[in-house]
């Protein structure tokens, strides 16, 4: 009996090696190996929905998770590729609730930046899917640290910046990577939107104040309501005359007016949150609040809205004369009040995402009071649920997409290294332009290898 584990380990090892060899890199960093059936055995499972399983097995087949459970109760299917995760942690692929992945390559170079259409404050008809660059160098860099899904959103700067997309961070081309186009509407009530007039003097164009921005937003939704009514009337069989002209801007707003899809509404200060929520409630929008970074004094009110919140960035600086941890503690304070929260990798160091640092934002929230399980949820199941895909993503559960990560330790700790990532049940090549550069110059570090 005592020898059996050793034998098993040998078998598992050879299986893993075979697996690695078949994992050659094809177009756009995809694996040329057949997906087949995969069994991840021996690891500590962080399921997100049903606790931790110390020695568990996850089986994936046909791109989905088909079995999850403790080792003793599970059979590894015949012919499965076995990944030995002994001593490691197994968890669902991470979900970054806001990114600009695929919208920017070199941040300083305008030619490869499609972050925001700046010509108007109201741009619901801008679809990030029209700009999403599936072959970006940036995505492999993020996914090898365990991020498998992300919301791609336009950068902030308009009142309505456009429509977000849900992507998986893997696929041969755009169509393979976009899971849901136009999944949410990106909105903002932030003083920075007043760019036409500019604060103070400026060009004299409307809107030059927050009053103007709010009024413009309300008028937009009123116009869209009218448009919706007109279109509905024109669609009736007894409608006489020509069909009214389609207005892409107005049309884009209809699913949001109907509450079919969420709007991600960004606001930083307490009063901005209150004004934004006032507008949202007037038009019965289904809101995901974004940021609330400096709204510490209205957290109970935010909880009373019963809407989920994408917090921060947790790294945003507090206002001068606020305690240093005023923002660090925000996820914990909101969660304590029963608010469903998500975290993102976006921070105030620029518009380009480094999703690979997402787990560390969650760990930081733990350092400042958020329970560990809630932190993990904030980067897996919670954002999946906020965007309406909680049945497919965000946990280790049977029937969900086979997005699974194995790491050599606590996923939220900066010192941990991800060993293998599966997306859609496929072991992705753990390669990026950065690992290739590393390997190219590694002989400098190890002269003996030369």
């Amino acid at each position: 009996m005592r020898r059996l584990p050793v034998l098993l380990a040998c078998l598992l090892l050879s299986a893993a090696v075979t697996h690695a060899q078949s994992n050659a890199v094809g177009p756009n960093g995809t694996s040329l190996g057949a997906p087949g059936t995969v069994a991840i055995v021996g690891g500590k499972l962080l399921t997100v929905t049903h606790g931790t399983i110390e020695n568990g097995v996850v089986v994936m087949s046909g791109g989905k998770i088909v079995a999850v459970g403790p080792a003793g109760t599970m059979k590894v299917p015949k012919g499965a590729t076995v990944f030995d995760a002994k001593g490691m942690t197994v968890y669902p692929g991470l979900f970054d609730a806001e990114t600009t992945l695929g919208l920017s390559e070199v941040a300083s170079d305008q030619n490869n930046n499609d972050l925001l259409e700046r010509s108007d404050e109201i741009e619901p008809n801008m679809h990030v899917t029209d700009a999403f660059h599936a072959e970006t160098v940036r995505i492999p860099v993020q996914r090898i640290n365990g991020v498998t899904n992300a919301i791609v959103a336009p950068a902030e700067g308009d009142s309505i910046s456009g429509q977000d997309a849900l992507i998986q961070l893997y696929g041969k081309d755009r169509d393979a990577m976009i899971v849901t186009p136009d999944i949410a509407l990106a909105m903002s009530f932030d003083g920075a939107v007043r760019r036409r007039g500019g604060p103070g003097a400026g060009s004299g164009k409307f809107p030059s104040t927050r009053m103007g921005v709010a009024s413009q937003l309300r008028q937009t939704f009123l116009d869209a309501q009218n448009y919706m009514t007109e279109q509905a009337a024109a669609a009736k069989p007894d409608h006489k005359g020509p069909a009214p002209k389609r207005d892409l801007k107005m049309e884009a707003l209809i699913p949001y007016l109907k509450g079919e899809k969420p709007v991600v509404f960004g606001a930083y200060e307490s009063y901005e949150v209150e004004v934004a929520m006032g507008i949202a409630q007037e038009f019965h929008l289904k809101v995901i609040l974004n940021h609330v970074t400096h709204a510490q004094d209205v957290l109970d009110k935010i909880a009373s809205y019963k809407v989920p919140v994408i917090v921060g960035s947790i790294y945003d600086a507090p206002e001068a004369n606020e305690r240093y941890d005023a923002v660090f503690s925000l996820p914990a304070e909101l969660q304590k009040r029963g608010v469903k929260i998500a975290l993102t990798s976006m921070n105030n160091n620029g518009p380009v995402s480094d999703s690979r640092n997402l787990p560390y934002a969650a760990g930081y929230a733990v350092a400042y009071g958020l329970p560990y399980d809630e932190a993990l949820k904030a980067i897996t199941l919670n954002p999946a649920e906020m965007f309406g895909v909680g049945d497919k993503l965000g946990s280790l559960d049977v029937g969900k997409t086979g997005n699974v990560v194995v790491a050599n330790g606590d996923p939220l700790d900066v010192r941990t290294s991800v060993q293998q990532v599966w997306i859609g049940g496929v072991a992705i090549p753990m390669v990026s332009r950065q690992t290739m550069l590393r390997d190219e110059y590694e002989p400098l570090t190890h002269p003996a290898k030369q």
Partner: protein
Amino acid sequence: MRDTLLEPLSRYCPSAPGGVALPVSSTNLRHRARLGTGLCLLLPCCIVSAQTAPPTDLVIKNATVMTASHGTIEHGSVWVHAGKIAEVGATVGAPADAVVIDATGKYLTPGIIDPHSHMALGDDINEATSPVTPSMMMIDAFDNKDAALYDALAAGVTSLLLLHGSANLIGGQAVVIKNKFGLPREQMLFPNAPRSIKFASGENPKRVYGSRDMLPSTRMGNFEVMRQSFEDARAYMATWSAYDAKVSKGDKDASAPKRDLKLEALSDILKGKLLVQIHCYRADEFLTEEAIAKEYGFKIRAFHHALEMYKVGDKIAPTGTAIATFADWWGFKDEAWDAIPWNAVMSMREGVRVALKSDSNDYVRRLNQEAGKMVHYGGATEDEAITMITLNPAWIMGVDDRVGSIDKGKDADLVIWNVDPLSTYARAEKVYIDGDLYFDSSLPGFGTTKFSGVMHTAGFSGADDEDGGVQ
């Protein structure tokens, strides 16, 4: 301590009894400054509530002591005497009346040192009116009430190098501070720290001046501007040498050349009086910079950013030049496109002295975790990772004989952490500078011990090179 407070006291509050030594905290001084001189008569009342001077002897016991110079001591103790580290080890021979802090289960490190910051300089980061401005003194812009200093203190950052930006090939001279947030400006300066000067290269200078149709608009232009500057300095030095020679021969009619602040500063570079800190990204540029340094006979102390050092670490290591780099920043501009997060550890293995730096009012708040990433990216040991944010940045700033490690005789700049500081879950609980407590997270309000009053956000709040900025 007491005497040093008299000078600012009399300055802020002219009617205060300047000649009397009083245990006045700077907290009170700040209140006084805000309330105006009319309230100076109330000074004696304020003194009653002033905090006490730091203990002469302090022992922090039973911590996991990460020394940064000689490994980690489990259940170790540190004895601080008169602001200096008197002893570190499994046990220490402190006097019986020493104040004892029980740090059981906690971690103790040297204060974190950031060798590249632009905080507390308002929006005066770049004198971008000429590509060569070596006589700009950053101390003239130093704003000691910037909230960024507080945020950094709460993150365990005890010393910083505040640098000119990167618009200019040869920028200004840095100010080195101890982060004694709450004390007057002059008391925050790192005493007798060597002078550093900021150079830049690559995209920023050529963009700033090229966009104005000025020299330089290319990297060729960049380096030629540098060479010409040093030629000018040589000529200036020759003029002074000739004058000095005449004087030493007894020529009483010799007329002294005019002093020129710019050429004087450039001459100081050639004389080795300034530590040269070069903003530089690309592998080829490290090599060119070293060649120019060799040609003109000065040493480069450190390349900052240095994101491609992993490509030529073997060539740079023998020069002794260190790097101050980001943990994992990349892709924000063309010259950061080949950045890889393994750069720091690979460069270290190639023999280069490596420090991490923030260059950001954000990342300065978690340099310990940026160091923790080095365990992930390249397998640094925890001791190596800690050294990258303590002893190595101290060396870059030329203050490694006084700070940067927990060694006998060094300044007692110490941080007590709740858990391993390289973990995501680390919080700085207590921060000591020169043996005095400046931050304690268990205190209400700011957690500061020397500051109570109004801080502000200085004009510059972001990161250096993000989006091709020019800081």
